């Protein structure tokens, strides 16, 4: 199997770990608000805001990581050599 494919597998592993971290973090912050055990209103609002921020950071970070991986890790060397246009 080519090194390019192995690099995609590494990206997939990182995406998996990011998903586990993000989903559990969001659940940790937001679930207490949903079941009413967060305490005061201020704490509930703070937890919700943190949950939304984690979600947005995850989404933006995921896309940026993939773009970085595509251009720098997978295409980087080829682009520098000027041969990745692939005209068959």
């Amino acid at each position: 199997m080519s090194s390019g494919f192995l690099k995609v597998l590494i990206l997939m592993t990182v995406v998996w770990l990011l998903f586990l971290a993000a989903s559990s973090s969001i659940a940790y912050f937001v679930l207490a608000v949903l079941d009413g055990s967060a305490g005061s209103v201020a704490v509930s609002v703070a937890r919700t805001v943190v949950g939304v921020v984690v979600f947005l950071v995850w989404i933006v970070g995921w896309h940026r990581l993939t773009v970085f991986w595509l251009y720098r890790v997978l295409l980087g060397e080829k682009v520098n050599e000027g041969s990745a246009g692939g005209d068959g």
Partner: protein
Amino acid sequence: MFQTAFVAAAAAAASAFVMLPVSMWLSRRSGAMGLDVHKPNPYPVPKLGGLAIVAGLAAGAVVYWAFTSSDILVPFIGSLAVAALIGLWEDFREINPVLKPVLLVVAGVPVVVAGVYSPNPVIPFVGSTRLTILYPLLVLLGFSIVCNAVNSLDVLNGSMAATSLTAILPLTIIAYLEGKTEIFSLCIVTAVVLLVFLSKNIYPAKTFAGNVGSLSVGVVIAYVAIVGRMEVAAIVALLPHIMNEFHIIYSLGGLRSGKKAPTRPTIINSGIITANVERKAPVTVVRLLTAGEKLTEPAVVWRLFLLCLYSAILSLLTYFLFIRRWLP
């Protein structure tokens, strides 16, 4: 457990097998033909092959229901019918890219109305949760996301069926380990139907699944995930599909038709596929797999299959490490 599942699977396989040539005839007759653009000399291919998938899934579910009278199979038929109708509609006339995910929400309605779900998904590191009010909304959203994600990987000969088979694999194993008989049977039925369909869809494809096929497969995976309480395992098994859909939407700046992308994600020359290096091209999984490489269509599909198989392994790992101990 096994006997009824295998009888249902046999009925599903027979139905799909019989319906395949019928669906191809119907495609030609109705003019529902799609151009196989990845071939050196593109030619039209019948694109309603997915009708055979729908027939197989429905036959398997009905036969299983006839033996067991299981309550959870009736809403499944409802969800399948909704997705198949939306898919058929799009196969004849392109649906607005914003309207399509909204319509697919309706596929989740039978599940919510029948109440065949448990609003207690298990989340890694957190455990079993209680989402009584939020969960029905997530069910509707989940159907739309999964159907669109499976649909987005239907880009090469055999790609949708092969990658969906790998997504079903860990769910089948988990259903077996958890003793969820109906869900296990539905997984076996789906796997068998996809294998029969692959016989005519593998390179060089004699028929395409069309939206009717890919959306129906999406419905089964969403249904199995929600009704079988395997939400997180299913998301991990579908990571390549979800990644593909997510990056296309992000790259295009919202829900837009892929045909309106400023440039294609890949370049095809004499049947050889390679990633487009232009920054304006949308990020897709096929583009990642062909970055800096020149591959034939079957080679790209093989890599897609292996990538999804890796996701299936991660899905099982997620189940064994983070979910199993929280399940009742």
